[in-house]
């Protein structure tokens, strides 16, 4: 089981969390002018790196807050976690 570092509560068991996939996916600007290709990219394409990934989790059975964290998809090692709307720490890579 993952031991996930909530930036509000500290490390807690994975079963207290839900996954939110890739972090920092912004809603497109000029959304009324987007082509179908651009919409497809926003709706369906998420990065799927083998290595460090910035992702979102929600501490649903704890503080119930969303946050971001760096995690390595090769060995499940965690890097720094950080609150939304704060400066993103550098990738540990």
């Amino acid at each position, binding site marked *: 089981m*993952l031991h996930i570092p909530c930036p509000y509560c500290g490390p807690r068991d994975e079963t207290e969390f839900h*996954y939110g996939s890739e972090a920092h996916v912004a809603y497109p600007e000029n959304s009324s002018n987007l082509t*179908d290709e651009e919409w*497809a*990219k926003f709706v*369906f394409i998420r990065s*799927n790196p*083998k290595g460090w990934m910035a992702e979102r989790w929600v501490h649903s059975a704890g503080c119930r807050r969303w946050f971001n964290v760096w995690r390595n*998809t090769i060995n499940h090692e965690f890097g720094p976690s950080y609150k939304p709307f704060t400066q993103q720490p550098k990738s540990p890579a």
Partner: protein
Amino acid sequence: MANMTRRRTVELPDHPDFLWVADQKPKKAYDVIIIGAGGHGLATAYYLAKNHGITNVAVIEKGWLAGGNMGRNTTIIRSNYLWDESAGIYDHSLKLWENLEEEVGYEMFFSQRGVMTLAHSVSDVRSKQRNFYANHVNAVDSVWLTPEEVKEIAPIVNISEDIRYPVMGATFQPRGGIAKHDWVAWGYAKAAADMGVDIIQNCEVTGFKIVDGKVQGVKTTQGDIAANKVGMVAAGHTSVLAGMAGFDVPLQSRPLQALVSELNEQVLDTVIMSGAVHVYVSQAHKGELVMGAGTDSYNSYAQRGGFHVIEHQLAAACELFPIFERAHLLRTWGGIVDIAPDASPIIGLTPVENLFINSGWGTGGFKATPGSGWVMAATIANGEPDALAKPYALDRFISGHLIDEHGAAGVAH
């Protein structure tokens, strides 16, 4: 209905040992290179040779033959999906399974013992019945069972109304079943190799040679290899390969786990799935109970997941099958599955000319091994999508023609 197991007592044939002696070196050039010696890559090579006479083919594998999901899955085979496009490709595949051992000349322990999918609530019953009627429209065999009929086929199921999620009915596909996955891979590999296909293990593709938007070959840990056409059949690693070729795919790689018990007396001669409580089970030929459930929630390439997921499926299994309480867990493992937004595969052309893709089979591609290889071979040979593969093109995510099997399948095996 009760005795539909084709029980085998045959002597096992010798394996074609030379296939996993990892010393076959690649030639300088091939007509077609297939990346990935899982079931789908091997089947693609087999049908390229068998159906299209293209034998100057290499299957390039970074690890060993069927060491990916092909050797890790729980081998459930069925074709009773919801949508027409799915009925097309999965039932074509099931028809191929029905003659495969004879055709390939290799024992695969294909056993049409039926696949039962339980319903546990009123809405579950409604959606399963919708599926059952859709199967009839598509001429896919499907039976609706009452709880008593479930019990008749599988006496170990607890159909009491007092359990947390009582059994309220089930769909049943009599032609569904299981096969022995590694033997399927070896059978395809041997038959392909007999027709001249090279199977190169311990050889990782690390890049593509692309000139003017057209693929010319691959870079590998054993040097550059030229090819007129390349097929990516890399399951959980498809995003990594597509990245090397310079395009995006709507896939996420997630761990999917399974487990086996110690050997037991035969207690179950069909396959039982339950999407609502997240467990499915069959009993393999030697007597071990084979079980699995849903994926772990996060992206991963680690081929393992959390034990709480195993505990969750065992809790459901013990309530549905009380005699399992005394079975001992022998082994758990995980594979990395490539999941598309609509839980359907992605097959066809890519933005790079002569580079083809076959991926997105996620948690449920073993059953499709023959059909997937068949349509992929035709797509590569003809340079345009096979009719059954056409709806599965990458551009459906732009056109919006999704083939949404998520809700339809529950536990999507």
